[in-house]
């Protein structure tokens, strides 16, 4: 009977396919190292989920084959620096699967976005490894050696453009002096944007969250930019830097942890967008997606309660 509509496994797979363009851009600019992270992450995710399902007394095959653990691992793997040591992704995925999903009862029961929970854990516990981003294309051999601890990474890393802009602003430079969006960030974000539009067309995700999230980013950054264009970056910058597009189409749209009513989704997405800009500008970390999403995850039951649509006849 479900002929025209996708089932859960197909939904997860479509999301994974839609990530290809953005990941491709990452590979183009920074090398194949991200694939190593993805591979490590997936193996850890499947193993962790299998062990935990066995501990919980559930059957393993149906739950693993729905692809949600693999999706979590991939999202986390592309959010961290691609030359981070191997244990970073492993610990992150372990935390995400165990504390972000399994202890709540598995798929469908988690209140927080697992990938973002893992990212937040990593960022707070290992700030050094999480802020050393590759600044140029790194060959696969060099990357593998770095990831597995066989050689150092000096001279290869730097801050992201967001981080750079933030520190420069703190040091008093003005926006005009710092310069515009980095090319790599631009193309990576465009890759995710195209993937996201594909998902919208295939009706895998609904329009409310991506559109409202991007609107929130634009709204908040425009307000700040109009107040003082010297010290606040423009909307375009915020839209096309960091993980904005990834957040809008892939992270905030995780149906399990997002709001469920149409109006609720709009509020949820919009507030995430606003928080992303606020934390970027005033918070202590360069990118804000993880914290913004997690904070809004907490408010989802409240949003859902107050945005119940009117029933026919009441």
């Amino acid at each position: 009977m479900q002929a025209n509509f996708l089932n859960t496994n197909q939904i997860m797979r479509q999301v994974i396919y839609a990530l290809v363009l953005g990941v491709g851009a990452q590979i183009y600019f920074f090398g194949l190292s991200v694939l190593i992270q993805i591979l490590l992450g997936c193996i850890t995710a499947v193993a962790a989920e299998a062990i935990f399902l066995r501990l919980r007394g559930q059957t393993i095959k149906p739950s693993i084959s729905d692809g949600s653990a693999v999706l979590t691992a991939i999202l986390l793997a592309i959010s961290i620096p691609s030359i981070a040591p191997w244990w970073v992704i492993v610990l992150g995925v372990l935390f995400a699967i165990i504390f972000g999903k399994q202890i709540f009862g598995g798929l469908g029961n988690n209140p927080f976005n697992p990938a973002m929970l893992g990212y937040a854990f990593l960022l707070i516990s290992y700030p050094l490894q999480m802020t050393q981003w590759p600044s140029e294309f790194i060959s696969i051999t060099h990357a593998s050696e770095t990831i597995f601890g066989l050689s150092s990474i000096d001279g290869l890393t730097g801050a992201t453009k967001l981080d750079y802009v933030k520190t420069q602003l703190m040091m008093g430079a003005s926006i005009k002096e710092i310069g515009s969006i980095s090319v790599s960030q631009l193309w990576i974000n465009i890759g995710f944007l195209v993937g996201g539009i594909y998902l919208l067309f295939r009706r895998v995700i609904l329009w409310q969250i991506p559109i409202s999230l991007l609107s929130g980013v634009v709204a908040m950054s425009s307000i700040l930019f109009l107040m003082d264009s010297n010290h606040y970056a423009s909307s375009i910058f915020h839209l096309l830097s960091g993980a904005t597009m990834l957040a809008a189409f892939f992270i905030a749209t995780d149906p399990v942890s997002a709001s469920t009513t149409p109006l609720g989704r709009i509020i949820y997405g919009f507030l995430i967008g606003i928080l992303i800009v606020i934390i970027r500008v005033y918070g202590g970390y360069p990118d804000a997606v993880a914290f913004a999403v997690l904070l809004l995850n907490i408010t989802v039951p409240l949003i859902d309660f107050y945005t119940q649509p009117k029933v026919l006849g009441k």
Partner: protein
Amino acid sequence: MPNSNFKGGLKIENPYPSNEIDLIRIPLPDKVVLPMQQRIGNQAIPCVSIGEHVLTGQIIATIDDDRCAPVHASISGTVTAIGNHVYAHQSGLKGLCVTIESDGKDEWVDTSIGCTENYKACLPLTIYDKIRISGIVGMGGAGFPTHTKMRLARGCKNIIINATECEPGITCDAALMQAYPTKVIRGVEVLLHIIGAEKAIIAIEDDKQDSINELNKYCNNERIEIKVIPTKYTSGAEKILIKTLLGIQVPSGKFASDVGILCLNVATVVAMFDAVVENRPLISRAVTLAGSAIKEPKNFQVRLGATYDYLLSFVDLEEGSHKVTMAGLMMGINLKGTDYSVSKNTNCIFIDKAQESVVAQECIRCGMCNTVCPVELLPQQLYWFSKSENIEKAMDYNLLDCIECGCCSYVCPSNIPLVDYYQFSKALYKKQTQEKAQIEKARERFEFREMRLERNKSERAALMEAKKIALKEKMAKDRSQKEKIDAALERVNAAKIDNMEEDAS
């Protein structure tokens, strides 16, 4: 002009399309098995005995409440059994049925007495009674007794005839309209007269072009409008239809008659016409037979109580194991085997090739179900509450307004049988409410009994007290008498002694 399209619902393609829709008349069945428990109301009580000879149209079971209608013999013959037989119900439980073996003659009861063509001269109450005595209930599936519905709808301004047949795959109403368009129109005219309404709207979906043409051909009454609405599943749900056609929202918990509207299924109208004008009670109906295991979908006019196997003998059935569904793909129930009989609300029987049952996965909170609910409920929330048996919260989210249309289960990516969960929680709510009422009653009776025993005890004690006091008083009275006597005796004695002393000196 109200919007002809409503929020929610689904456009579903007919899974069993056919080129021609014909109402095929089949020979009389050899036996009929008539169920006594109809969809609503108390069980009907058989008024015939085994071995008795009955005529077609004779009442064989009477009812004692207003929420169902009497049962009639659908063929003439001998009553061979009054016993338990499995019902076409998802519980698989058995219930009382009357079995009649046909004598092949189809002898009718006397159909000359009644309102006939001169129904306009009859009182409305007479006609209601005729409808009741003819056993007419809603034939669209709900089975609500028509006479009660019409009585509650007295004074309605608008009548809606539901000819939408929105559930995909069912075509019995379309076949009926193409076969008897005049009966439909004249039936509506009878309705208009009885109810005293201003106008009637026959609502029909735009995929039934042949039926629309036939009805238009025979309808030349200004008070009857044939309104074509877009084909979309649940357009035929009563409250949705009323909103679509007239823009009126029936408040939750109330009925269409409360807002001045009477809504009847088109097959019910035809049955009502037969009862009022031709004095024939409800003894047959149109049934759609279709499915992936049946070569061509067909519509049969069949006597009530005929077995499914009898019907299936008229179609090309593929060999192999089958999945049997009654009453539609969306709102129907799965049955085991085919050992059932046609009842008043059997509108279709689908026989599909047996497929592997799909395993349900976890709910991923995608919210697709919320977007398709035609009553604008939140199926996802109702699912979570039903799963945790939190009936209170489910009621807060308007559980009882769910029309169990199945749109939500249809779109669920995890194949969760959502409607089953809502049926479960509705049944649980009904059970809990009844249990609470019973517990309250038991507590009241217990407390009254305690009070009664206390009262008995204190009455006895009071009685004892009163008796004691009476006795004491009596004793006291006796004492004063005794004292008087003693005093008198003393005086007498004293007097005697005085006398004796006088004598001595």
